[in-house]
């Protein structure tokens, strides 16, 4: 009897293991499911993009050897010219607040005001910047998605 139970348990174990090994993923479906689960808000996106912009300004000031690569990225994120921050090497930004002040520039472009604190070892200054959100639509794998681009400007 004990032997029979042992054989059944072994068969059950092997069967479960094979099921696990044969498991396949539909990456396309998984991608969209996962993206949906990790959906971010417009405020979170603008905060992250502004942090990225600031990181690039700091890297440009602190690592001139890599300047060429960084300038290209800053241009890509700038609506007009690259934003300048005094004492950027030592500065950091805090209290980023995406405001509800939205100006509709055109059917596809919104201008959103972002307030932040610029903190240097000597002082903290309240400042602001504008994010330009350009919207359009794109088809990926037969599915339509809204698409967007964010750029920053002082004005």
């Amino acid at each position, binding site marked *: 009897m004990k032997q029979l139970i042992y054989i059944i348990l072994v068969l059950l174990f092997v069967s479960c*293991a094979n099921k*696990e090994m044969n498991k396949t993923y539909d*990456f396309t479906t998984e991608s969209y499911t996962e993206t*949906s689960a990790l*959906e*971010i808000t417009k405020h979170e996106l603008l905060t992250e993009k502004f942090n*990225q912009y600031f990181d690039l300004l700091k890297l440009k000031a602190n690592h001139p050897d890599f300047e060429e690569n960084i300038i290209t*990225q800053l241009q890509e994120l700038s609506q007009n010219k690259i934003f300048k921050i005094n004492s950027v090497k030592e500065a950091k930004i805090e209290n980023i607040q995406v405001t509800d002040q939205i100006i509709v520039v055109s059917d596809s472009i919104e201008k959103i005001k972002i307030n932040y604190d610029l903190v240097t070892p000597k002082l903290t200054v309240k400042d602001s910047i504008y994010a330009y959100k350009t919207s359009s639509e794109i088809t990926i794998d037969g599915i339509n998605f*809204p698409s967007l681009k964010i750029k920053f400007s002082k004005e």
Partner: protein
Amino acid sequence: MSSPYHKTDTITRRIVSNSNNKVRIASDDYSLMLDYYANNNLKDWKVRQQNLNNLIANNAKIYRFYGNDLGVEVYSKLNFIQLISTPTNTLKKIKILDKVIEHGKIVKLKFIVQ
């Protein structure tokens, strides 16, 4: 396993697993890029960029997914290579969702920033 330029991972093997399976480990691009920047190692950084340039097809379609409301952002090959070869906080949080490879090059890539 842990390594300065790879993400720490834990691998669990089952007794019934085949031996000598290959285990993929994820590189820690942020740490690697930070090392290049901190040491002004422009030479190795350019090699890395060239490797990425060879890995991705010129006309590759690269998408960053934001979710259903905001949708996607389209990246050019150059933009994406620059993004993953610059030590910003965004690089720390990039996760590749899916990639399509044809003739040894990436032709389609989807990613998120967590």
